[in-house]
């Protein structure tokens, strides 16, 4: 760590009890982020609060740009990234929606900005509680999306995200659930700065905005050229999965924790697999343990990387199951839960006849507990095949 540990006590012991939001801040600090531009929004506020304090106390040698909106925050990040700086921001819900235009600009401009997003339900009704519709609404903006389940994973993923993004020039969004992760304190192993520096060298872009080599960036692009730019973005996006696995293994070698595309909990011999994302993945594990005690062979597949979608891994893990229940804390109105759509498309044409059940629960921060998963498991086991497009769990009827 550069200088003394900020706010959370000093000393050389690297384990700290921190909230999920501060795990993002520490991740950005250890990554030696050079420019941060952000606008505060509940439940993200502590992320940038701590980063601004780190900048003020010189614990982090970065420029903190205060802006008047999230749109401007992303715009500032894009300019800084184009000039060759490692750039970080964080937001949530309405703030992310306001950034939407510039999210396309970041990926289209191939600027490896890394952003933290705290999953918060979209208004109205005005909500500060968790659901995934904010980040999943940005599905097609060309950003890599990571869904984290613990504070440790948040910190580690920020560092990995910079490595992956800067390697392929694609921006990343690191997502965590409002309150159940953002404001929950957990023990987090904070890696040593020297080792992080070794893992994540300074950002040296191939191309950057510099007066010595003037270029026009993002100008009018005729039909003659635009198509190829998008082709290249997709081709590089297709390399992200393998790079996450590779950099995840490298991270494990150096820090003892593997960072992959999915997390498989007892899926290998499971008859019923519960597919989840974010913190509810850890909740599902508790339910899996309880179900196993009752003699039901359950397993949990937690999808960590949503974009690019890990089709092959998901397919290979799920094909051994008898039944699959996909649990979504989000909805695409007029369709299904969004992870459910993705899982279906991963299996189509590859795995025939596997009954897939789509559940929606926990919207707007309604609690998802182990008993929610037990209810889902029992429902799935009681039917031969899905009878409804969507099964709602927890609606007051």
């Amino acid at each position, binding site marked *: 760590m550069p200088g003394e540990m900020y706010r959370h006590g000093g000393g050389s012991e690297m384990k700290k009890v921190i909230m999920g939001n501060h795990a993002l801040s520490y991740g950005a600090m250890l990554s030696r982020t050079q420019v941060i531009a952000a606008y505060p929004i509940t439940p993200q506020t502590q992320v940038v609060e701590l980063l601004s304090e780190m900048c003020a106390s010189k614990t982090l040698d970065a420029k903190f740009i205060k802006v008047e909106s999230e749109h401007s925050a992303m715009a500032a990040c894009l300019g800084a990234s184009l000039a060759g700086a490692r750039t970080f921001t964080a937001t949530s819900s309405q703030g992310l929606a306001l950034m939407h235009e510039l999210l396309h600009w970041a990926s289209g401009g191939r600027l490896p900005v890394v952003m933290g997003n705290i999953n918060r339900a979209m208004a109205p009704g005005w909500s500060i509680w968790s659901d995934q519709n904010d980040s999943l609404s940005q599905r097609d903006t060309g950003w890599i999306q990571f869904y984290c389940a613990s504070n440790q994973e948040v910190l580690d993923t920020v560092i990995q995200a910079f490595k992956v993004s800067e390697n392929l020039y694609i921006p990343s969004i690191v997502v965590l659930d409002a309150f159940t992760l953002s404001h929950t304190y957990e023990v987090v192993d904070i890696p040593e700065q020297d080792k992080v520096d070794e893992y994540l060298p300074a950002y040296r872009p191939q191309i950057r905005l510099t007066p010595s080599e003037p270029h026009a960036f993002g*100008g009018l692009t005729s039909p*003659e*050229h635009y198509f*190829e730019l998008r082709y*290249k973005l997709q081709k590089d996006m297709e390399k992200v999965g393998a790079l996450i696995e590779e950099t995840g293994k490298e991270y494990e070698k150096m820090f003892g924790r593997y960072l992959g595309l999915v997390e498989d909990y007892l899926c290998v011999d499971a008859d019923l697999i519960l597919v989840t994302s974010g913190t509810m993945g850890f909740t599902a594990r508790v339910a899996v343990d309880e179900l196993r005690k009752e003699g039901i062979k359950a397993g949990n597949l937690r999808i960590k990387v949503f974009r690019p979608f890990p089709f092959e891994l998901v397919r290979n893990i799920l094909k051994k199951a008898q039944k699959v229940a996909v649990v979504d804390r989000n909805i695409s109105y007029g369709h299904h839960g969004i992870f459910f759509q993705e899982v279906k498309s991963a299996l189509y044409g590859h795995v025939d006849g596997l009954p897939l059940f789509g559940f929606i629960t926990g919207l707007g921060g309604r609690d998802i507990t182990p008993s929610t998963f037990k209810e889902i498991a029992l429902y799935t086991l009681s039917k031969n095949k899905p009878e409804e497009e969507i099964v709602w769990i927890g609606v007051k009827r």
Partner: protein
Amino acid sequence: MKKRKQANKIIFHSEKEVPLMPMSIGSMLFNKTGAWRNIRPAIELEKCIQCGICWKFCPDVAIFIEKEWPVVDYDYCKGCGICAEECPAKCIAMVEEVK
């Protein structure tokens, strides 16, 4: 007419030649915006005081000063009329474009 900076038309034959980011992959020199014009500036040089304000204000860099007199580049002039509006000597008239 003073010669514009030369630019070669960029044509990529393969995606491999296309830069990673949309950067300097076209030139506005090939976009002859003069075709957009409905009215054109006509400069009455007898009244011109050679102040250079039309040259300075033209948003499309379509007015040049040649041997101290303004000349309009009709390949690019969109006919916005800013030069006529700003001219202190009122020597620029916007006249109907005949195509």
